[in-house]
C-alpha cells in the first residue's frame, strides 16, 4: 500500500482548471519530486493534500485512509507535515518556540494544567523543549534557537520551517519550494538534510521545487505537471530526457 495515493484529483478556480485528473503515488521511504512551470498547479495539489483547500473531485488516501473532508489539523495529527512557499513562520516567536508549537499541538490540551502550572504541565514543557532542541541540532541550527524567527535571513527561515515540520514527527512531509532563495551551497546542504531526514527519521517526502539540481539530486521519482495535468512521470534520468517535459519547460519551439 502506498503511503500517499492521489487519484484523479481535480480543482477549478472559476474557469481555470488548476488540477485535472492528477494522480500520483508516494511510497514509504521515497522522496517524490513534483515539478512543472509556474501555475502548473503544484501548490494547489499541496493545499489539497494538507487540507487547506478541498478538491472538486478525486480521492486522496493516506495510509489507506480517505482524507477528503478532513480538516487540516486532523491530517497533521495523522502524520502529514508541510512547509510553505511563502514562509509562514510564527514571526513574533523564537526559533525554539516555533518548533515547540508542533509538539504542543499534538499534546493533550491541558488548559487547566497550564493555568495552574501543574507538575505534568511543566514536565511536558521540558520534554517539548528537549525534543525541539534535538531537531534543531539535527538541522544544525541550534545556535539560533533563541533568535526571533522574523529577524532571521530567508535561508535560515526556510530551515526553521523544515525543523518545525519535522518536530511533528511526520511520516509524510510536503516541501513547497524549500530551495527558493537559497544559494547553490545552501541547496546542496539542504539536499543532505533531506536525505538524512529520510534515513534517520523515517520521513517520506513530496517535493516541489524549480531548482533542478535539488530535485534531480534527492528524488526517487518525479511527476511533471503542466496546466493542471500530469504530463510525465518516472525516474529523474527518464524525466530529464523526456521530449514532452522539455517542450513544457522551454516552449514549443524547442
Amino acid at each position, binding site marked *: 500500500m502506498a503511503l500517499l495515493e492521489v487519484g484523479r484529483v481535480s480543482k477549478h478556480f472559476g474557469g481555470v482548471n488548476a488540477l485535472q485528473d492528477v494522480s500520483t503515488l508516494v511510497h514509504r521511504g521515497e522522496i517524490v519530486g513534483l515539478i512543472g512551470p509556474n501555475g502548473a498547479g503544484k501548490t494547489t495539489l499541496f493545499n489539497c493534500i494538507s487540507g487547506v483547500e478541498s478538491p472538486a473531485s478525486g480521492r486522496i488516501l493516506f495510509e489507506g485512509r480517505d482524507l477528503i473532508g478532513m480538516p487540516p489539523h486532523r491530517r497533521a495529527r495523522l502524520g502529514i*507535515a508541510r512547509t510553505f512557499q511563502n514562509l509562514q513562520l510564527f514571526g513574533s516567536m523564537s526559533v525554539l518556540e516555533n518548533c515547540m*508549537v508542533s509538539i504542543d499541538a499534538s499534546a493533550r490540551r491541558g488548559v487547566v494544567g497550564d493555568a495552574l502550572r501543574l507538575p505534568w504541565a511543566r514536565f511536558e514543557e521540558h520534554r517539548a523543549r528537549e525534543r525541539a532542541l534535538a531537531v534543531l541540532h539535527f538541522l544544525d541550527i541550534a545556535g539560533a534557537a533563541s533568535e526571533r524567527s522574523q529577524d532571521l535571513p530567508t535561508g535560515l527561515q526556510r530551515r526553521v520551517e523544515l525543523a518545525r515540520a519535522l518536530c511533528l514527527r511526520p511520516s509524510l512531509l510536503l516541501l513547497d519550494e524549500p530551495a527558493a532563495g537559497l544559494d547553490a551551497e545552501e541547496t546542496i546542504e539542504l539536499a543532505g538534510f533531506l536525505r538524512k531526514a529520510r534515513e534517520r527519521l523515517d520521513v517520506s517526502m513530496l517535493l516541489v521545487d524549480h531548482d533542478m539540481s535539488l530535485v534531480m539530486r534527492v528524488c526517487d521519482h518525479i511527476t511533471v505537471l503542466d496546466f493542471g495535468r500530469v504530463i510525465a512521470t518516472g525516474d529523474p534520468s527518464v524525466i530529464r530526457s523526456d521530449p514532452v517535459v522539455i517542450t513544457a519547460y522551454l516552449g514549443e519551439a524547442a
Partner: protein
Amino acid sequence: MTPTMLRRVLIPAGFAVVAIEPWFNDFSVQGSAGRAAATALLALSLVLLTGLVGQVSFCQYSFAALGAFTVGSLVVGHGVNFWLAALLGTAFAGVGGVLVGIPALRLQGLLLAVLTVMVALFVDVTVLAPGTWDGFSGGVNGWPLVPYPSLFGHQLGSYTFYLFALAVFAVAALLVWNLRNGKTGRVLRAVRDSEVASSTLGINVAGWKLTAFGVSAALAGLAGALQAVADGSASAGSQSAYSFQWSVALVATITVFGASSILSAAVAGFFIVFGQQFLDKIPGLSHQWFNLILGGILILQLVFNPDGVVVKTQRDIRHLLHRRSQRTQPLPVPAQTEAA
C-alpha cells in the same frame, strides 16, 4: 537585579498599596475602587482575546451586561443568592461569547470589528433598552439597589467587597499569566501569527478561537456581575454603564497601555474609573470629556509609541537593568599595546 526579581518585588508592593489605600477613604471612593477592580477584570478579558489571540472585540461591555443584569434580575428581582447569580451570569456571558465566536471564525480584522460592533448595538437596544426590565419586575431603567453579598457568613461592605473584587482580578490575572507562558500561550500566539501554518501543524484553529471567545466573554460576564454590586445597581437606558461607547473606550484604553500586557489591564481598570473622577475635579471639565481626551491620548500614543505605555515602560526598565548589569561586571583588562 534582574527584571524577574524586580517584578517579584514591585508587583506585590503595588498590589498592596492599591489594596490598602481605599481603606483610608470614604465609601464612595471604596465603591469606585470596587468598580475599578471589576473594570480591570474586564480589561483582562480583552487582553486575553486581543493580546493573546489577536481577535478584536467592541462588545466586551455587552458581555459584562449579561453578567450584571443576570445578577440584577436574580438577586434583586427573585432573591437568589449572589454567588449563584454571578456564576449563572458568567456562564450566560460565556455562552454568548461562543455564539459571537461562531460567525467570527470566518472573519478577521475590520470585518470582525464590525461584527462585534453590531453585537454591542444589538445588546444596547435589547438588554439595555429602557423598559426591558419592567417585564421582569425591575425598574424602567434596570435594577437599582443591588446589595453587597455575604461571604462565608460575613457581610461584605464597600471596602471588603473591593478587596474581594481585587482578589478575583489577581487570581484571574495569575491564571492568564500562567496560560500565556505555557503551552496554551504558544498555541494561541501561533494562531495569531499564522492560522494556516497553525492548522497544518495540528492545531484546531476554530476550536481554540471559540474557546478564547468563550473564556474572554465569561471573564467579562464575571466582571459585569462584580460591577453591578460595586455600583449598587445594574442600570439600563441611555446612561447605562454597559453601552457600546464604553466598549470602545475600553479598547482605546487597553491600546494606549498595551494590549499584550496583563499589568496594563490592571492599570486600564483604574484609569477608566478614576480618570473620569479626576476630570470632574478639574474646573471647566467633566467626566463627559473622558472619551474625547482618551481619543487624543490614543492618537499621540499610536504615533509615538505604538506598543503601548505599560509595555514600553516594562521594556525600558528591562533595558536599563540589562545595561547596568553589564556595567557592574568587571571591566576587561585593557590590552597593553598603546603605551608600549
